[in-house]
């Protein structure tokens, strides 16, 4: 294939992707237009293959007519592979260095933005219980995918994943055994429902929705990597608006505040673990309504 043909070929794929995102936005009001291009292309290609479609135009044709097909496509777009206590050093840093600060507040709110299937929430709930802060904390678990929220609320994981979870838990400084918190049977592990006693599960879209509460810790790990710069800035602006002065923001290992226009609202707290602290500066621009 010579260069011009290849160029033209890529261009029509690009057009189809744009039109598909526009169709999703106009018909279903989910805004993926600010998601990073590379990850969208990979995810859409996988969906196209699974749907048995020849092109993204064909995918678009189907999702506009079949809500069921759209739900399936959402699964591809929002799928998150996570683990409990993923990157144990992050959870160790929270336990040893962040929680002593949080302890000075009489009541606490934690926002798990992009909670996916709940792995991060259960990790934090266990951590807060072990450190004696559970009773004064409310956890807001938000995601744009209703299916993910449902699964997060269930707290059921395949047994084969539990070995990895347990290893992470120990490496993060866990005070007991992870088995204290789940019951395993029939190839599945069900996490103790009392861990959800202090949790609110709600669908919330970082691309279009607003701040809903004042919080002391935002944990948003491996969510922003799917966003382009403008959408990242919007989300970080929401976090900054939401956090109390001195509140904490935790990112995934591949994410950083460094290039954000909202970086001035935060100070480094733990550079290795991507934990930042809200300073006293006001968030400059008003958030647009999206």
């Amino acid at each position, binding site marked *: 294939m010579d260069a011009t043909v290849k160029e033209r070929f890529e261009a029509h794929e690009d057009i189809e992707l744009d039109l598909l995102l526009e169709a999703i936005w106009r018909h279903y*009001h989910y805004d993926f237009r600010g998601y990073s291009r590379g990850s969208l292309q990979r995810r859409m290609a996988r969906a196209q293959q699974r749907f048995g479609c020849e092109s993204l135009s064909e995918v678009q044709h189907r999702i506009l007519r079949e809500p069921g097909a759209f739900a399936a496509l959402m699964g591809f777009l929002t799928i998150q592979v996570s683990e409990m206590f993923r990157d144990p050093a992050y959870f160790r840093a929270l336990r040893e260095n962040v929680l*002593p600060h949080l*302890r000075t507040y*009489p009541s606490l709110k934690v926002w798990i933005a992009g909670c996916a299937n709940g792995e991060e929430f259960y990790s934090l709930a266990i951590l807060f219980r072990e450190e004696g802060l559970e009773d004064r904390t409310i956890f807001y678990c938000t995601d744009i995918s209703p299916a993910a929220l449902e699964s997060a609320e269930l707290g059921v994981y395949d047994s084969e994943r539990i070995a990895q979870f347990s290893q992470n838990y120990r490496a993060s400084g866990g005070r007991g055994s992870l088995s204290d918190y789940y019951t395993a049977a029939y190839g599945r592990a069900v996490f103790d429902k009392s861990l959800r006693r202090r949790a*609110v599960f709600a669908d919330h879209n970082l691309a279009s929705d607003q*701040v*809903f509460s004042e919080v002391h810790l935002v944990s948003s790990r491996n969510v922003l990597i799917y966003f382009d710069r403008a959408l990242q800035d919007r989300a970080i602006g929401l976090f900054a608006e939401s956090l109390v002065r001195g509140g904490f923001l935790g990112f995934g290992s591949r994410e950083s505040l460094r290039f954000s226009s909202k970086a001035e609202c935060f100070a480094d707290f733990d550079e290795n673990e991507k934990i930042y602290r809200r300073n006293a500066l006001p968030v400059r621009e008003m958030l647009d309504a999206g």
Partner: protein
Amino acid sequence: MGYLFKPVRREQLTDMLESLESRMAQRVRRVLVVEDDATQAESVRHLLASRDVETIEAHSAAECLEQLGQATFDCMVLDLNLPDASGLDLLERLSADESVGFPPVIVYTGRDLSQDEELRLRKYSKSIIVKGAKSPERLLDEVTLFLHQVVSELPEPQQQLIAKSLNRDAALEGREVLVVEDDIRNIYALTSVLEPHGVNVRIARNGREALTALDEAAQGRTAPVDLVLMDVMMPEMDGLTATREIRARPWGQGLPVISLTAKAMERDQQECLNAGANDYLAKPLDVDKLLSLVRVWMPR
């Protein structure tokens, strides 16, 4: 001060005025530490001591009132356990007593607080610190912040007084509004908008508390509620469920309910209406819009 002999050269005069000005700007800030335990008071003093901060101790509520009656303070650090009064009582008294000054308060407490206690304290103090390993750091930080705030923002009571006399509003005066909201920041934002208009604001922290409060009002045990402002995302019971419950009660048909939602989409807002809300208001809250909505839906 300083003195100069006449005739005075212009530069000399400017120099002197400048040094005077800088000395005024660097005036010593005064912090009142209200703490019954002498050792703890001493350690707070140590923590805050610097060239431009003077700390004065009071070991009881009575001493605190005496100090505030005599002099002006930039900030006050208050322990909740005092021999002659509870910290909350003291704060309530200070807020009611016009004859003593009421500087910004930082509550510094050795024990955990219930949700209710925190809510009541937050009316008088934006920063509440529970003592522990990291509390000295936070205390220093918060005091520093208060001491360097711009003074022009300070005469809040006067501002409120003026606002009160201008804004009294026949449609809202003396009406009962139930604010159902778990976020303290929003509770106070709503309260500070509604109260100057003569509204009596009551607070419930989630849908369940709201239903209890409304049931009690319906049974005549408390004053009837005229209107409900209902947050959507709350622990225990969310606002949509609570609104549906209200509509299912015999007394709940005609009660105006306005949803407060952080969601931007039309269908999310439609969901509020489907649940039985009369109207909705998107967050972040717009004060003017809030007031017009409350006026529109307030029963005559």
